[in-house]
């Protein structure tokens, strides 16, 4: 399907220079000389490489039809993460550089949605939140009540994030995996 670049949205998959890219960021820009533009950050789904590209806002862009399939996250090695379709048992792999740091918030064996086009996995569809256990964090010093103060905590997947001082080792917390931010207690 073709859309106008001015309507591009974050997360969409598009054709650019004969390759498939996922839109990471868009920003409308009218320089006041010539066409208005859509500034976009695109990630190549085959290499993980990102580019900044300015489309004319009324330029036609071919979008890529994708299906989102529920899969089990099996494991990752230094380069790739591996998934399995729960229905067909077909396995898929994705470059870690394509998925980005969001993978650090998932446990092996967990279910998640993966975008697929033409039998090829393009990227995962990260959930808005994940619940993870705090496995290591220092106890807050008594009397340390500065509002908004944060400390580091290590979560069960090994990733470290900043959490409020009142969070204790062993607690379950809710995290936004895309931002890598604490959003609340579970």
């Amino acid at each position, binding site marked *: 399907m073709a859309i106008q670049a001015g309507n591009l949205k974050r997360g969409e998959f598009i054709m650019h*220079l004969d390759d498939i890219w996922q839109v990471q960021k868009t920003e409308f820009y009218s*320089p*006041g*000389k*010539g066409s208005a533009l859509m500034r976009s950050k695109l990630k190549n789904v085959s290499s993980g490489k990102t580019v*900044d590209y*300015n489309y*004319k806002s009324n330029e036609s862009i071919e979008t890529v039809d994708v299906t989102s399939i529920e899969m089990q996250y099996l494991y990752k090695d230094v380069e790739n993460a591996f998934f399995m379709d729960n229905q067909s048992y077909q396995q898929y792999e994705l470059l870690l550089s394509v998925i980005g740091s969001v993978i650090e918030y998932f446990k092996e064996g967990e279910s998640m949605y993966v975008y697929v086009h033409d039998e090829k996995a393009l990227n995962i569809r990260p959930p808005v939140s994940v619940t993870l256990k705090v496995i290591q964090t220092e106890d807050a010093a008594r009397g340390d009540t500065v509002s908004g103060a944060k400390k580091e905590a290590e979560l069960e997947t090994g990733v470290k994030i900043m959490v409020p001082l009142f969070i204790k080792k062993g607690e379950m917390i809710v995290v936004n995996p895309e931002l890598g931010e604490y959003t609340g207690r579970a």
Partner: protein
Amino acid sequence: MKIVTTAENLKTYQKYLRIIETIEKFLQENNYLKLDLPVLSPALIPESYLEIFKTEFRYLDTKDNLFLTPSPELFIKRLLSEGIGDCYSMGKSFRNSEPNSPKHQPEFTMLEWYKVEKDYKYMAQEVLKMLSAISRELFGKNTIAYQGKSVSFDKWEEMTVAESFKKYADISAEELFDPEKFVLKAKNKGYVIDGFTYMDIWSQVYAQEIENNLGTSGYPTVLFDYPVQFSALSKPNSDGKTAQRFEFYIEGIELGNCFSELTDAPLQKKRFTEDDRERSRSGKIEHPVDWGFIESLEKGLPESTGIAIGVERLGMIFTNAKNIEDLKLISIK
């Protein structure tokens, strides 16, 4: 759309106020007269690439169309031709069809200031002095840090548009100013050209390959002498290809746009007609053309130079903000 309150930006907002005060102090000390101008007008300057906001005045059974001004220029030029002399205006301007982005909002604060009997090169020096005045007032020195990069106001990095295309996009002056050659070059670089004009494609190449490099050398960049096609209100140079226009940049952000003002009434009239026709062709909101502006030019606009500066964008630079909203207590989103 909704109203969003961000009172937590109070500190940045207060700093932004100091920037505005410093700008006004600088201009008033240099004998520019402050103008308080309308934002509603019954007629506008036709600008082919700008969309406008339309409203109406109603009284009993009469209705008059009014338009929010995308710039105060039409008022200021009238006053200049009446002999008012050096002057400035700082107020709201409005541009439709331009969604919120980190560097722009459809309603924004614009500073325009005009100096008579001088040209754009003089204005560039005046702008540098103003940037320096803000830097010294806020930080006590002539250097600031924006997003971790140091910017000094000791001098401009000066570059012509032709030099920048050669340096950053490997496009020669011959290709740059010849629409046919330029479009072919863009096509070879992989740009989509079918159905687009020289100006559209030029704008895309400029944003893609040039702009991000401007104002990144430790000094602000002044880029001057744009192709005449982009300079509807500015004086042409004698080379026949360029016009006396500059823009200035810090860390890839365009902050202002200056012309040596076009004083040739017949030429201005011709450009108005062309721009008005282009507006109609591209389906923009129709508005009466401000022919009174042409009459002012016929009366005699003094030789002058004028600059328009996005005040919030300048505020971002001096408060080290990444987003215009960081300066605001209230935003419409």
